[in-house]
């Protein structure tokens, strides 16, 4: 029985030790967990955005002309849009309110043919409060990119919008990884049908072949004189000629300032390889 007393004493000392150890780590554990669930809210918001908001606002929130305004826009995050409409609250409240209540009445100065739906459950929409909060967190996470503070800016000169400039030799494999990675081309041109599909698909030729034939067509309104120039133009000046069946203003307009000449050459080489 004396053994039980000694063991009991040791057990209690171990218990006190564990309690102290937990106490010391609690503050940082709580901070870490808070950060984790804020991060997961952004993830949940991203999925909700893809399902509910992308069709009108575009996959990267850049807006679709004639359909919905840009959300991933500097004027939203630097306060000018709110100042223009005279909204006195905070940006998170604004975003949350617009999502939850929608726009039953068109905003002054806009002529969008369709109204933004009401999303919040309190007003008859399909989303719970925590889902509206998640969407808000996701949208607010565009701040860095919208204000240009987070975009990976290429070091050195960018390629610019002159499609006649001579290009270095391109590496199609690198172009492929750029398109599927940082530039995000694949999300509209390969994985979904938001933009013309790049790879060959069910009998239709790939974009490399189509570029050659497109410049010969009578309806073509751009300046390109070769397949490579056509593809260059469609990246940096997508509104110069929009293929029938697709909407203008879907593509980001800033590739001319984001890509170096080598980046563009690689991308063009890849696209041309898709017959």
């Amino acid at each position, binding site marked *: 029985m004396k053994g039980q007393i000694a063991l*009991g004493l040791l057990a209690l000392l171990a218990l006190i030790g564990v309690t102290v150890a937990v106490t010391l780590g609690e503050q940082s554990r709580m901070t870490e967990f808070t950060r984790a669930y804020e*991060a*997961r809210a952004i*993830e949940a918001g991203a999925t909700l955005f893809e399902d509910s908001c992308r069709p009108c606002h575009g996959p990267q929130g850049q807006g679709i002309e004639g359909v919905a305004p840009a959300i991933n826009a500097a004027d939203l995050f630097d306060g000018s849009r709110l100042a223009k409409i005279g909204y006195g609250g905070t940006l998170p409240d604004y975003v949350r309110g617009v999502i939850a209540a929608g726009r039953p009445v068109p905003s002054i100065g806009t002529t969008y043919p369709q109204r933004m739906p009401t999303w919040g459950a309190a007003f008859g929409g399909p989303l719970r409060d925590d889902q509206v909060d998640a969407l808000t967190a996701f949208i607010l996470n565009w701040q860095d990119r919208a204000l240009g503070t987070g975009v990976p800016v290429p070091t050195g000169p960018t390629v610019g919008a002159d499609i006649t400039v001579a290009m270095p030799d391109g590496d199609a494999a690198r172009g492929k*990884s750029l398109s599927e990675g940082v530039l995000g081309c694949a999300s509209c041109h390969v994985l979904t049908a938001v933009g013309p599909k790049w790879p060959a698909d*069910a009998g239709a030729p790939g974009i490399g072949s189509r570029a050659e034939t497109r410049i010969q067509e009578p309806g073509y309104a751009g300046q390109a004189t070769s397949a490579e120039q056509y593809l260059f133009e469609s990246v940096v000046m997508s509104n110069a000629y929009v293929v029938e069946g697709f909407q203008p203003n879907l593509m980001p307009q800033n590739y001319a300032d984001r890509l170096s000449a080598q980046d563009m050459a690689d991308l063009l080489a890849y696209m041309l390889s898709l017959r």
Partner: protein
Amino acid sequence: MAIFRLHIPVLDEVKRKGLRTALNDKWVDVVTRVTAGLNPADVRGVLRDDPPGRPNPRLTPHAEGFWLHMKPTYYHRMVDGFYPTFRLGWLSTFFGVFEIVTGIYLMIYYTPSPVVAYENMLNLLSNVPFGQLMRDLHRLAAELMVIVVVLHMLRTFVTGSYKKPRQFTWATGVILLFVTLVLSFSGYLLPWDQLSLWAVTIGASMVEAIPPEIVGRNVNLLVRGAPEFGANGLLRFYLLHVVGLPLAGIVAFGVHYYKVIHHGHSLPPEGEKVGEDTAKRVPMDSRVYFMPEILTRELWYVAGLLAVLFAAAAYLYNAPALEPHANPLITPLHTTAPWYFLWLQGMLKIGDKVIWGLVIPGVLTGLLLLLPYFEVGPSRRYGDRRIGLSLAALFVAAMALLSYMGTPHYAVSTSPDQEAVAELLPQTHPGPLRSAPWDDLAYGSYEAAAWSAAPNATLQDLLHRYDEVLTDVQSAGRADVAGRMVIEDWQTDLKKVTLRVTWTNTADGTAGEFSQSVYLHRDGNYGQGA
């Protein structure tokens, strides 16, 4: 003056005996009252394990005190050790009390409403010191309690301790088993995440199947408060969990423990003659007294168990990480019942749900309850009860098999392409892709077959797993199966990962495709178990 002549008895004593003696006498008086019969010298004697002297003062706290009143003053030496009881009844009680204490802590931060319950859980884990510890302790002890209670029942059966005169003790024990299981089940719903909602929906759906239809429908409405779980159901389950079942449990426990002590712990079967029950007649030389032996042992058990539970909850065990908020419109793939109800799910996969989900479990429960009233063989010896013991072993094996059959991987599957993607991106827990180090997920497009060419070990690992699981998609109907994982930069610290499976249908040459994408944030912290 008369008004100042107050009579304070204590001061009289001090005047009479002197301050020192008076204080000492007061101290002795207080200790004797608090311990209900032991003066300080007696207490010291207990601590020293001295022979108690006659009359034994250590019996007085039992006879005259409240807390020790039901506890026996001595045990028979044959039931004092680990065998034959393994102290499982004591352990069940310990866990019950432990759950009540940790439960009360958790109640401070929980409101049973679907609008805030999930948020309360997030708050508990992120903004309450020791919140995660309390939740993990409560969950860990709940799962252990179910195991311990079942083992206790098994032990009682094997040693034949349910026989005359202890039949009703056994019956109250079955009631306590039922209370434990429903306590665990009702608590499962409270976090209100996807796991909670769907696990409990699966379990409660049996209630709707009670024939005739009008009874089933109304019992379902009573239990869930609505055709489906929602605000009403959550509140009812909370009340059950926090008020109804604990009250029922305390009452049943009171009867159960009283009868255990009244009849005495049954001796090991080989320790007494067949048909006799000599548990109450303990000769003087076979007595192990509560004070100090049993008391010391129980205190040591408490200390040891608390140390193990706290250490386990702090370092080894984490309650299942909160899944996404409950969504009544989406059932996750491979959703599953809590493990102690897997046997029921296994039964449901065999055949008609009324027979296998209600009738057979009902009959089994009835048999269990009435067991001591029809199994009336006089001998408790193992050798004389071979049929019974074999049936018990068979029962355990059957439950294990049924539990395996109840797991989601048995006889439940969707199309193999979805299963392949679910291997990396499960819908019920983080899984390998979410837990992988975020920085290792390099941007790019990767083919599963080319896994060895991936830029780092994490990606090679993931793609290899993907590749292996894709071989199941290859079948007579599908050829040219290929898998691809695309990782894109989506927002600051946010990556989008898309898993695609493509194949060609051999029947008509058309192409088939399935893809699923997920967004992963740098700080998502899925690998940490919370």
